[in-house]
């Protein structure tokens, strides 16, 4: 079974949501609030970066052996 990698985007977004909730609840002292805010801003930048840097990759599996496949670029032929 291949290892399931945690989707970094979702994780980071969840963290950001947590920070938003934290700040919204208004229970943090000022320094902690500013700290959280900074973390939140960093996260939002990282998330946007993930969106921008995603590289398009369309592949198809080609059989190389009876039970083996290899990924190759797929010609989309979109009309």
């Amino acid at each position, binding site marked *: *079974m*291949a*290892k*399931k*990698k945690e*989707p*970094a*985007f*979702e994780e980071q*977004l969840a963290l*950001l*949501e947590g*920070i*938003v909730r934290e*700040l*919204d609840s*208004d229970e*943090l002292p*000022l320094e902690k*609030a*500013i700290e959280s*805010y900074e973390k*939140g*801003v960093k996260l*939002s930048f990282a*998330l*946007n970066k*993930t*969106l*921008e*840097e*995603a*590289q*398009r*990759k*369309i*592949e*198809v*599996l080609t059989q190389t052996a009876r039970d083996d*496949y290899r*990924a190759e670029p*797929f010609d*989309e*032929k*979109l*009309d």
Partner: protein
Amino acid sequence: MESSFSTRSQPMSISRLTQQIKGALEEQVPCAWVVGEISNFKRAGSGHWYFSLKDEHCQIRCNMWRNAAGRVGFQPRDGMELLVFGNLNVYAPRGEYSLVVDRMEEVGVGRLKMEFEKLKAKLGAEGLFDPQHKKRLPLLPQKIGLVTSPTGAAVRDILRVLLHRFPGVHVLLYPARVQGKGAEEEIARGIKWLDERESCDVLIIGRGGGSEEDLWCFNEEVVARAIFEAKTPIISAVGHEVDFTISDFTADLRAATPSNGAELVIKSRAEYSQMIGMMRKNMDRSIQRKILQLKNRVGVSESNPIFIRIRSRVNHYQRRLVDLDQTSRRILEKRLQSLELRLLRMREALRPDRLANRAASLQQKLNTASSDLETLLAQHMEGKLQGLATLTGRLEDLSPLKILNRGYATVFNEKQQVVRSPEDVQFGEIIHVRLARGELDARVIEKEEAVQAELF
């Protein structure tokens, strides 16, 4: 045997015979309601339907013209029990008879449909469709797996939607047949492969629209089990809106069509950006609100009576300081003024004009005195000069030089004494003679007695 239609000597042509048959059949059975099991169903490119209806013993060829077929509210499949209404037709050129069907209805439950219901009940009982087994789809899949035909419309639709929404998407296709015998095995293999070996975040399995037979592989048990056992979330996107397959029930999410599947799997990049943007705005607002709150608290503290009192006292002292400063300035200025006044008065008392007059007269006196002095001095000098001249004359007269000029000489002996008498010298002594003009040395060679020098 003789008949009314033909004789041995006057046989019928085939056409004639066929015509008779046609007439007889079409007359006897002009139209009828017929029931039977459908088989060999084919939809031609023209849109006309060709199939057979049979029972245990016999079968008859049927066809349905496009218009009539279009009015059928379901997709006929081999094995279905059908009730049709049509009329007999003899196609003379081929010598074939057939039923031209005008209306078609399902009767009871077709075989395939029964299979469907059976499998659905079985798997449902095993819990394959239970909601608690359904996995959540990732918000932004980094790798999307597809199990579908590489040449079908589905893969093109899916890719088009995916790329339109999120140009940077990563997709891996496991190519599988999606109809015909053995397709279900390929689909199940594809699901297993992608799930176990390719670490996709989500899978889409499906195909474009088609007949119920075409879609049948997605009703097979092997596919349902593969979906259920997969760890990756799976979207089933089979056929059209109205097509429901066992895959749809087993999958973590059903999509009405392959395009719909692509929409369910990923949002547009703009939407993601907006999500992040909103959170950012939210945070900004929260932090600003917090700062404002704290500012207010400070403000409230500032308006606390203690602060007010302190501030007023500070103000009070400040004002006193200003007052003192002003007072001291005024006093100093006054003093300065009075001193200036005294100075002025003193200046006036000095009467500079009178002083000037006095100075002028004194100056004049001085001038007078000065010239008087000069005169007196000159006179005095004159007198003195005269005196001097007189004395000088007398001196001159007494001057030895004058005497010398008259031819007298002064004689010095070797002891440098002035020789006045021969006793002052010795014989042969060198004597020094000073003349009026010059000097000489001489020797004494003769002496005579002193002569009375005085004349008076």
